[in-house]
């Protein structure tokens, strides 16, 4: 049986998640893996927004911030279970994206970039300044999700690192599955059409404003869940989750790996999450090297790392 690209991607992803732990030298790597998956989830949203629909956002960390702080605040103030708090955060992010997106998405290119950037910075400022609610820059505790305890009750005893590794991996798989469904669906095609030619998309009947808004809202929900996962697994969150650099990180990961495909973008998330870990010896040079990698990849491998690598492999195969 021949696999469709969707099945192949999901299979590769599932295999990687399931098999890499066998090569982990220590428990610490479960944490790194979980972080990759959390970033991968946010980046999958960017694939829908930027890769499919061709719209740029430099403010998606704002939605991650909403998702993260929902998990910190809703359990305490509203008495919600942390899992429901994450859902609430996603709904809030979606509504916010809808409200902000309606006027913003009329803009193109750099204008859209700066408008989203402004939004992200505003969210991060609120999180920094409203100390009565968020405790400001020092951060705030996040309650336990409680799922690990539940699993233990059922006889599945995982270490904290193991639990978050597999749970985040599962979330990423679901996220990737949804994004891949979308790719080849009527909605996904409309998004890719407006990416190719906005005017032609209109002429075939695509309500361009509505389609862009859909992509923006969906990607915001991804970012929100990614923020929630990060907060829940660290049991702590600071406003940095909504910071400008986090927004840049998301876009960079996606574009570096290859924003046109879910697997490529997740690959990018892996590389950029691992890079600082690999560079701890050269902590001094971290920024220098990060900047260098960003420039070099964009100049020499425009489609992103994974598509370029795949092309190389296929090129020699033929």
């Amino acid at each position, binding site marked *: 049986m021949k696999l469709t690209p969707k099945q192949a991607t999901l299979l590769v992803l599932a295999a990687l998640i399931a098999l890499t732990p066998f090569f982990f030298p220590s428990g610490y790597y479960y944490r790194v893996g979980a972080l990759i998956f959390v970033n991968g989830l946010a980046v999958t949203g960017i694939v829908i927004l930027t890769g499919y629909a061709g719209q740029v956002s430099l403010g998606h960390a704002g939605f991650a911030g909403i998702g993260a702080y929902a998990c910190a605040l809703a359990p305490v103030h509203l008495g919600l279970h942390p899992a429901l708090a994450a859902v609430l955060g996603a709904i809030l992010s979606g509504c916010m994206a809808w409200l902000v997106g309606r006027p913003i998405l009329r803009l193109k290119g750099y204008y859209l970039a700066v408008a989203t950037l402004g939004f992200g910075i505003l969210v991060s400022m609120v999180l920094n300044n409203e100390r009565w609610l968020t405790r400001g820059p020092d951060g705030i505790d996040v309650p336990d999700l409680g799922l690990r305890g539940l699993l233990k009750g059922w006889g599945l005893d995982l270490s904290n690192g193991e639990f978050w590794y597999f749970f985040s991996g599962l979330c990423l798989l679901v996220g990737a599955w949804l994004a891949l469904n979308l790719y*080849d669906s*009527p909605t996904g*095609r409309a998004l*890719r*059409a407006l990416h190719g030619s906005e005017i*032609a998309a*209109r*002429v*075939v*009947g695509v309500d361009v404003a509505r389609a862009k808004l859909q992509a923006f809202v969906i990607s915001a929900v991804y970012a929100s869940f990614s923020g929630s996962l990060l907060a829940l697994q660290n049991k702590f969150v600071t406003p940095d989750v909504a910071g400008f650099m986090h927004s840049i990180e998301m876009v960079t990961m996606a574009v570096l790996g290859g924003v046109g495909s879910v697997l490529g973008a997740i690959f990018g998330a892996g590389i950029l999450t691992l890079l600082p870990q690999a560079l701890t010896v050269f902590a001094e040079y971290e920024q220098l090297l990060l900047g260098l990698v960003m420039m070099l990849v964009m100049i020499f491998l425009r489609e992103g790392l994974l598509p370029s690598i795949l092309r190389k492999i296929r090129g020699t195969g033929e």
Partner: protein
Amino acid sequence: MSALLSIEGLGITFGGLKAVHDVGFSVREGEIVSVIGPNGAGKTTLFNMISGVYQPGAGRVSLSGEDVTGMRPDLLARRGLSRTFQNLQIFQSMTVLENAIAGYHLRESGSVLADLLGLPASRRRALTAREGARALLARVGLDRAAEREAGNLCYGALKRLEIARALALNPKVLLLDEPAAGCNAVETEEIDHLIAEVAASGVAILLVEHDMKMVMRISNHIVVLDHGEKIAEGDPATVSRDPAVIAAYLGTEADHADG
């Protein structure tokens, strides 16, 4: 029979320059009307106004009797107006088949949630569109290129792909902007037949084309523009004898002998 598309006193100015001024005509069901004129006469601008890409400065466009002046292109598409572009607007990174499927957007689109979850309803809609698109590609002779990336096709093939995409909307009115440009004699003849066939099925066709032989062969009615104004109209025989038309063309013939 009443007109499907009718235009009255349509005009637009760009930076004080009258690009199109007071142009009016109508296209009935199954009729092929051609708009001709020298380069820069305002033909494409006229198309852009009718299809909602530009907001007309003056005048009225109506579709099946409904006033649709300056309406958004996607809303016009819902009302059965479809078009192709002179300088091609292809979805480059999609396959040829996907380009044609895109033309089914209005019929295949449904709930986003169903699409995200890959529900059977979503897949059914997509499958119907896919089958329709395959049949259309066969009709324009592109079925064998279906899985190729559209950006890699030659110009003539892309022209046909655009026509297929426009037909996918199942339009009542079809605007074709230079459909035969860049095509060889055989391809032009094929496009000829295709247009005639579409018109015979009851679609009102408005055509801009530089290939005069083709225009004379297939048009029921010809509108001649020069410097943004209508200088003549009538059936092919009448128009080709019109002194104003001959003067307009002779004055500029040398400039675009290659067109």
